[in-house]
């Protein structure tokens, strides 16, 4: 799975979560906007964390060197 596919998965999860929030707890436009903001923020945070770790490992400058036992 490449970078973009997984990113799309994150986007999909975010969209699904927002839809769920919209359907399950629909409490007026301003509350929905808050829920949407929270979900987007959470998704972006999670994606950011994953993306950083993934990109950092794509072209490693150092490789694992096993310790002698």
């Amino acid at each position, binding site marked *: 799975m490449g970078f973009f596919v997984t990113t799309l998965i994150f986007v999909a999860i975010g969209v699904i979560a927002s839809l769920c929030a919209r359907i399950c707890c629909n409490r007026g436009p301003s509350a929905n906007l808050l829920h949407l903001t929270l979900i987007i923020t959470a998704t972006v945070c999670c994606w950011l964390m994953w993306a950083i770790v993934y990109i950092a490992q794509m072209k490693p400058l150092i*490789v694992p060197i096993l310790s002698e036992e």
Partner: protein
Amino acid sequence: MAERRGGGGCCPPMDLMRSEPMQLVQLIIPAESAHLTIDYLGELGLVQFKDLNAEKSPFQRTYATQIRRCGEMARKLRFFRDQISRAGLSLPTGSVSEAVLNLDDLEIKLGELEAELVEINANSEKLQRSYNELVEYKLVLQKAGEFFQSAQRSAEAQQREYASSQSAEESLETPLLADQETVTDPSKQVKLGSISGLVPREKSMAFERIIFRATRGNVFLRQAVVEELVTDPLSGEKVEKNVFVVFFSGERAKNKILKICEAFGANRYPFNEDLSKQAQAITEVSGRLLELKTTIDAGLVHRGNLLQSIGEQFEQWNLLVRREKSIYHTLNMLSFDVTKKCLVAEGWSPIFATKQIQDALQRATYDSNSQVGAIFRVLHTREAPPTYFRTNKVTSAFQEIVDAYGVAKYQEANPGVFTIVTFPFLFAVMFGDWGHGICLLVTTLFLIIRERKYSSEKLGDIMEMTFGGRYVILLMSLFSIYTGLIYNEFFSLPFELFGRSAYACRDASCSEATTVGLIKARDTYPFGVDPAWHGTRSELPFLNSLKMKMSILIGVAQMNLGIILSFCNALFFRNSINVWCQFVPEMIFLNGLFGYLSILIIIKWWTGSQADLYHVMIYMFLGPTDDLGENQLFPGQKTTQIVLVLLALISVPWMLIPKPFLLKLEHDRHHGHSYAPLQDTEESLLVETNQDSHGHGEFEFSEIFVHQLIHTIEFVLGAVSNTASYLRLWALSLAHSELSSVFYEKVLLLAWGFNNVIILIVGIIVFIFATVGVLLVMETLSAFLHALRLHWVEFQNKFYEGDGYKFHPFSFALLNDEED
């Protein structure tokens, strides 16, 4: 990427983003319906009354007497509660809804009950005292009776012996004197007096000694130990006591002994030497004891019943008294109008509550049969309204995190919105271990499931805090599980959950694995850190570089979000100066330096370049025109860097200079239009409250300039130091993973290595305690504090003024929390 986060916040209204719009309202209430009106408003709980009598002392106010009455009633209720808890009864917590008394009836009832209770208490105390006295008396009778009997027996024996010796040896050797003595004995017999009573045991030795000394030995004292504890009639305490009998001769000795008895707290009781009278006294005392006992028991039952009936209604009365007291306190804040027929109230209320307040006023007018209705009108003011966020049980804990730093200025963008996600997220970056995350999750789920039970109970300080933050901890643990999966750590152990490791041996024999290392043979591990890194020699260099860069990326993203929020604020308050002279140069400065660094980091990872980023960043300033050489990451890098440095240099004076001048210009223009028609108040209210500080009073140019200078310096230096401050994310997550791996390897694996069950058990226990104590409690606290700091300082100083004041409505619902 992260910049998108700020998106929706500015224009369409969002819960929590801005505090509720408030209005200053004036209520003119007819005096006869004032009490009921305030009662209904307290029920509603959406008005914060202003004190219109601030210059009056509490005693001068209109309703001082009523407050005193309420205070008196509260005192009586405290007395009842005290009595109830002393009687060992518990107050029923469930509120019983019976016919609601009015205050006057309640006052009378409380007075009666108190008088009754006091009388019962006094009586039962009196009875108890005489009962204790009788018990002591009985003891004296018993013990002293024993003395006399034994004394009599020995005296008889002596007499017999004496008589027998006399009859046997009546000879010449019999001394004359002795004969004489026996002869004269009956006629000259001195009547010995006796005093008997009880003395506390610890004083008995001293008592004996003093009596002996005072009478120069002309006394005969006997003591007997009372085995069980005796209740002292005076103090009501249980003490160890001795029964004593003193024999003496003469009036002076008697007086002395009486005084000594008094000094030692020895209770004296009459004692008759006659045996038959003693027996009679004992039966009499026993009879009276029995009688008293039944009386006392009946009294206690009566008292218990009384307290029980008080206890049933206690909560209701207590609530009523507190409500009344708070109503009168509020009434005291209102001022009388000139005719003395109306009360005038001023206060803040959210605009959405207008309808509810008007309803409450109408109901109060109707229910109190008042002829005139209360008048509700909105006042226009330049005063800053209070800040009021409508939170629920989830968001309130996060809002408190923000409020602990400073309450938001009225209608300012609320960092609480983003704190709900970013706070647990930053915590989790430092606390990434899904094993520990699951432990936290279980704990907090336990708290949430038992929420209803705990919220009605009184908890300890620490428990209270944990319980209050249960939803914060819930999100913290969920994010910890996520970051733990990213870090691939479960109690420091990696798992191949998401596919196979990307690394493999270079050849079949795997001979170079410990020298040159493995080689990347497959696709990158799809989710999180590759498990192959765990325990390798190059693990730390790799993770350090990764986590350090990650900290900077996350930090730059969050600081950008902060600056974007300042843009939202400027838009909201229609402050174009802040947009062009603060937001734009700040954005350019931060992103010209650290945004560029972030992009370099990503390019370096993406291309696998060996460029030295420190070198690039340093020589971007020291020698922007130098040749980059192997540090070239993308074409045109040199030009880009020169442009960025120039932009950053320009943005500093841009931040500093134009704003004060523009403000001065605006101020002068305002002054020129002194006689211009007033602006439409409705529309300008928001703008004016915001510009209060500038539009009002003296315009001190130097002050504004110095303020702007400080702001600029703070921002420029802060951009560097705040970015560095985000490295704490790296430091703490490193510390956490190292500590957990130490506990795993040095405790659990070591204990396992001994092949001994006992050592293994000890090892497991030590491991559990270390994990819970150090990792779950202390590390949680420290990561929490660091996340707190990152939000308060690094995030909020980009946009948050935090100089507002909180909305404190007059509400009965809040009464309970306040008083206890």
